[in-house]
Structures are given as structure tokens and as C-alpha cells.
């Protein structure tokens, strides 16, 4: 049985050209679309397509390393979209604040619309499903687990229609994320300082990442709840 071959198998070498050309073509289409569009919100959405081209190009290499490198690329893209769309909303709100009468209708479509979720499923099942999701996420640990557990928190949050949310709670969640980050850094350093404790380091890193991602996805859910409650 061969676990790792000394050289890259023939399949990956023949697949490289089609894969990277597909990446280049997707990138070209996306960048040209951005160059031709005028609306800022469209450009913001189209930049995600550029990120897709990046994933093509990285994954074309087809080694285990390439697989590990996709994750940072994806996360960077996601994180930047989040921060930049928030800046776009801020800018539009500042504009309205300075001149309340000007272009209110034109730009206000960009804001999250308050909407009511009066579905039956929202009152019966959510607690159970949220619990299952969080439990499964804790079993998975790591990045995937964080996303699943965070999804559970989001579900719980959007299904509960309790009014108002103290900012203190949000601060608390941000704090959990900071602690998780420290856990992880300790785990990472321990790998090199004391290699014999690698199991401990592995679990520190995996649980740190779980807490971090879950708290962040949960934070999105809680912010969303603020909007839904607003009506």
C-alpha cells in the first residue's frame, strides 16, 4: 500500500492545465464585469467571483498542501466581505445623517429590511435542532465544528423573538472569542516548545478554533436578531 507517492501522480499533472485555465477564465470574466459595472453594490458582489477564481488557481496544484491553503483564502475573502459591507452601510447612513432629504429612497434599499418571521416551525422545533447542531459542532471541533455550532446558535437566535438585547452580552461573546484565540496561540507554541505534548496542543488548537468560529457565527445571528425585532 502506498500512502504517499514520491512524485505527483500523472492524473494531477494532466488536470493542472484545464484547472488553471478555468481559473484564469473565471478571473477574467469577473474582473471585466467589475470594470464595466458602475453600481458599487454590484461590484461588491462581483468581487466574490474573483475569490472563486482564486480558489480554482490554488486548488489546481492538487497536493495536500493546496487543500490546506484553500482555507485561508476562503476565510480572508469572507472576512473582507463582512467588514467592507459594514463600511458601505455606515457610509450610506452618514450620508443620510448629513443630509436627510437627499437620495433617501435610492440608498435605503441597501439596509437590512425589518421583516416578521411568523412561521410555525420557528416556535416548535428550533430549540431541539439548535441543541443537536451545537452538540454535533462540539463533536466535530475545528473550523467545520465552529461553523455548525454557530449555525445552531443562529437558528436559536432567529427563532426566538425576545425583544431587545443588552450590548453586554455581545461584549461577552467577543470576549469568548478573544480567549479562544489565546488558547489556540498557546496550543501552537506548545507544539514547538514541548513536542511531546502534541495531543494537548492539538486539542487546545481545535477547541480554540471551535469556540472562535462558533462565537463569531453566533454574533452574526444575534446582530441579525436586532434587525428582525425592530420591525
Amino acid at each position, binding site marked *: 500500500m502506498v500512502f504517499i507517492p514520491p512524485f505527483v501522480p500523472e492524473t494531477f499533472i494532466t488536470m493542472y492545465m484545464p484547472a488553471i485555465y478555468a481559473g484564469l477564465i473565471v*478571473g477574467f470574466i469577473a474582473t471585466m464585469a467589475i470594470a464595466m459595472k458602475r453600481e458599487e453594490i454590484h461590484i461588491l458582489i462581483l468581487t466574490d467571483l474573483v475569490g472563486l477564481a482564486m480558489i480554482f488557481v490554488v486548488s489546481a496544484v492538487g497536493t495536500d498542501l493546496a487543500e490546506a491553503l484553500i482555507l485561508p483564502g476562503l476565510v480572508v475573502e469572507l472576512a473582507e466581505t463582512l467588514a467592507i459591507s459594514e463600511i458601505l452601510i455606515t457610509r450610506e447612513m452618514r450620508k443620510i445623517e448629513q443630509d436627510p432629504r437627499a437620495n433617501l429612497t435610492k440608498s435605503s434599499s441597501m439596509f437590512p429590511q425589518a421583516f416578521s418571521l411568523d412561521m410555525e416551525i420557528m416556535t416548535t422545533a428550533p430549540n431541539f435542532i439548535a441543541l443537536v447542531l451545537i452538540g454535533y459542532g462540539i463533536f466535530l471541533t*475545528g473550523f467545520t465544528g465552529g461553523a455548525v455550532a454557530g449555525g445552531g446558535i443562529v437558528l436559536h437566535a432567529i427563532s426566538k423573538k425576545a425583544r431587545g438585547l443588552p450590548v453586554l452580552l455581545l461584549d461577552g461573546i467577543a470576549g469568548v472569542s478573544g480567549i479562544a484565540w489565546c488558547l489556540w496561540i498557546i496550543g501552537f507554541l506548545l507544539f514547538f516548545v514541548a513536542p*511531546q505534548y502534541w495531543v494537548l496542543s492539538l486539542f487546545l488548537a481545535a477547541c480554540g478554533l471551535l469556540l472562535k468560529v462558533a462565537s463569531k457565527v453566533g454574533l452574526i445571528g444575534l446582530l441579525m436578531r436586532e434587525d428582525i425585532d425592530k420591525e
Partner: protein
Amino acid sequence: MRIGVLWNKLADPKNIPRLFAFSLGIILIIGFIVPMALNPDQIYVRPDPQEQIDEGLALAPYDRGGEPLKEAGFINPQYPENAASLGMITGYMSPLAEWISSISPYFGTSIYSSPGGLVDEILYYTRGFDTILESSILMMSFIIASWLSINYTMNRKNDADEIKKDMKKAVNDSVHVAREVKANDAKARSKQLRRDN
């Protein structure tokens, strides 16, 4: 076009992303005339796509050998000498993961999702610094976004509702004015009619 006009266009922030996208697209097209080929001498090489599945391994595409806590798995990083317990994570599986892999032949497809295994070794150990930076990027953008939303965009004190209320008032006022104008109009017309008759 004079060069000055061109520079003036470049000074508008709104045009810059589109200009950047355009030049990036041109460079991507140049890629088609560059001879490209994958170098077969790579680090972290993986076996042929279907090879492990055909052999019926439980951790199908990610089985790199090793025995949990006893024997290291196989992995070929750039600097093996910098990682003292290299391959141990690759060979490791948590007891729960081991149990699942014993009853299901498809555990390999979700090997990402339990501590241990090949991808964790790369993400946490040999290239752990990359993942630290990546999660710092995530954390920073969350700090930026949540700070803005808590202190400004979702701050209820200077809410858009206020503006909306003002707008509604203004609309009501203008409707009121329009109605008055209309009434005056009708009055004047009837007066005119009466005078004409």
C-alpha cells in the same frame, strides 16, 4: 486625451477599483501565452484520486498510515527537522472518530471534522502560523464590523426610524398642502364659472 485629464480621472476613488480590475484581467489573459506545467516534485504529495477508495480504506482519500498515539503517519513537509513529533497528528484519531471509521467506510470524507488527521497536522502544526494569521484576519474584520454595528449602524439612538418619521410628517404636510391647493382651485373655478354665467 491629455495626460493631465487622465491623472484627474485617476484621482477619483470611485474609478480605482474598476481600473484595477481591468488591469488584473489583462494580466490574467497574459497567462494563456505563458507555458505552464505542474512540477511533479512537490511537497505534501497525495496519492492518485481513486487509489485509496479502490483499496477500500476507511479513511479513503486521507489515509496516510500511522496508529493513534503509537505510530506516526507519513507526511513529507518542507522542513521535517523543525517538527519534532511529525506525523503523530496524521496518525491520530479521537476515540469517537475511530469508532465511526470502524462502522462506516466513508469517514474519510469528513476527516476534517474531528481532531487529528492529515489536514489538522498541516493546519495546526507544520503550517500553523498561516492559520493563526488567517484567524486573526477573521477576528479583525469581526472587530471592525461589530464595532461599527454596535456603536453606529445599529445604535438605536440615531435611528433611521427618526428620519422615516420625519419623512412621513413631511409627506403628510405636503398632502395637506396639496389638498388645500386643490380646494382653493375648485373654489376659484366655481367662482369663475359663476361670473361667466
